């Protein structure tokens, strides 16, 4: 039982990170109908932003403090939001009236560009970096159940961000505009919605969440490198498809399910070697059995 609970917490913590990244994929898909394959790299840049920000923050706040950690998180999210907006502006906006395939291929190009630029020795370098401890590295022991404070932070932060996201999307003017654009872009434009600013906002919001995911991931796994976003990003993409691409609660749910499945599979002898393949097996199954995803609605073209 203890082992089960332990794995449950591990799985939820991993799933929460997938969920944060998956939300960005699904939001961008909602307004632009394309998959931003560079999104996983924004996650990586979030982790590196934290890596470089932490010593700066430690100059005026005590090292390994919750306030300092929170500040690093917020700053890294802001940097990633800005990067997301810039990537959209430079790479995707000029292609707005081009076929979606052009934009998709460009996204792959942007992704490779970021990954290999960051591996250059004058940027981050290809070798893994040890991520600093942002908060005191302690564990809590409940009758043999050992939970890292890091894991609790991951779950709490994700929960707060999900609530904040829901508020933004459902209650604010910009959120309303986002939903309108995702239902019907020309109609939203005719209501007076500025499409370009909605798209920029969406990229900013999604990238901030990916940046948060990057920090939380680095806090738990300690080692970061410029290619860390490749596999995690792809898995988060699978999570978004699993939940139903374009559907926000679906992305969160898909992330949690994927995190749990991977973690539990990792605990089964003989299966554990295949844990990284599970996401892609799920992708194939979902595409075969329920292409719209768990919460997505299949759309029927009205003639």
């Amino acid at each position, binding site marked *: 039982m203890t082992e089960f609970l332990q794995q449950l917490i591990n799985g939820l913590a991993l799933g929460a990170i997938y969920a944060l990244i998956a939300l960005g994929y699904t939001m961008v898909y909602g307004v632009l109908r394309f998959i931003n394959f560079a999104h996983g790299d924004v996650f990586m840049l979030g982790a590196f932003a934290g890596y470089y920000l932490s010593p700066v923050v430690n100059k005026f706040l005590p090292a390994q403090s919750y306030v300092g950690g929170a500040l690093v998180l917020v700053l890294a999210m802001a940097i990633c939001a800005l990067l997301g907006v810039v990537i959209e502006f430079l790479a995707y906006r000029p292609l707005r009236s081009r076929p979606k395939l052009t934009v998709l291929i460009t996204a792959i190009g942007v992704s490779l560009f970021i990954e290999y630029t960051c591996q250059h020795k004058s940027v981050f370098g290809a070798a893994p970096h040890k991520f600093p401890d942002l908060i005191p590295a302690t564990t809590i022991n409940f009758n043999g159940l050992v939970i890292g404070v890091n894991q609790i932070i991951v779950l709490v932060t994700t929960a707060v961000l999900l609530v904040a996201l829901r508020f933004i999307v459902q209650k604010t003017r910009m959120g309303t505009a986002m939903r309108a654009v995702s*239902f019907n872009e020309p*109609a939203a434009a005719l209501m007076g919605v500025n499409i370009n600013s909605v798209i920029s906002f969406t990229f900013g919001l999604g990238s901030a969440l990916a940046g948060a995911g990057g920090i939380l991931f680095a806090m738990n796994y300690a080692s970061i490198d410029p290619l860390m976003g490749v596999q995690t990003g792809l898995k988060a993409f699978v999570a978004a498809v699993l939940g139903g691409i374009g559907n926000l609660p679906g992305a969160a749910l898909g992330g949690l399910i994927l995190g749990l499945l991977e973690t539990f599979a990792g605990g089964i002898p003989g299966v554990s070697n295949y844990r990284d393949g599970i996401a892609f097996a799920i992708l194939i199954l979902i595409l075969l059995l329920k292409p719209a995803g768990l919460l997505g609605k299949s759309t029927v073209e009205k003639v």
Partner: protein
Amino acid sequence: MLQIKNLTVSYGAINALKGISLSVQSGSIVTLIGSNGAGKTTTLKTISGLLKPKAGEIIYDGKNIAGLPPHEIVGRGLSHVPEGRMIFANLTVLENLQMGAYLVRDKKVVRRELEFVFATFPRLKEREQQIAGTLSGGEQQMLAIGRALMSQPKFLMLDEPSLGLAPLLVKTIFEKIVEINCERGLTILLVEQNANRALEVSRFGYVLETGNITLQGDSASLRQNPQVKSAYLGG
């Protein structure tokens, strides 16, 4: 109020509008009739900014608005009820109307406009909380018009409001168009395939054929025109 000069719009290599000119007097209803593919919808989409013109001017209130993005054009008081209505099918009737008032920041004004729309279309009031996608075709058309009115327009463009509606509903919709024009003093540019009705309610009309304006005149005289009669009024 609105003057179009030599407007040319193309889809790739094909010119959908080949340099049309037309004008709409303040407070009037002007209609643009023509068959499928003549360029009627293209004209409205270009005025509202959904399409960018290749050449020509669109003068509204003394300023050239050609090529501006749609949200700026709505902000100047031009509202477009698009072909096929394009309501937000997943939102409720009320939410659709609130979307129409996206640029209106004053809550009091939004409430006042909402009351006006409900007074014009009592059916929408009855269906306030219903999901818009479940409305009948006629109700959806009322919602599309009501939503356009929520932005407090001075100039309203209607694209085929009678499309796919039963004759009785067509009559109601046209009555409402006249009512909105009279009571609000709203200038209306009406695009229609139902030329008979359109020429009945309008003051002036233009006939569009494959991207050119081939005829124009008082709606009353157009109805008597033998060419118009044979081509658009069923003999």
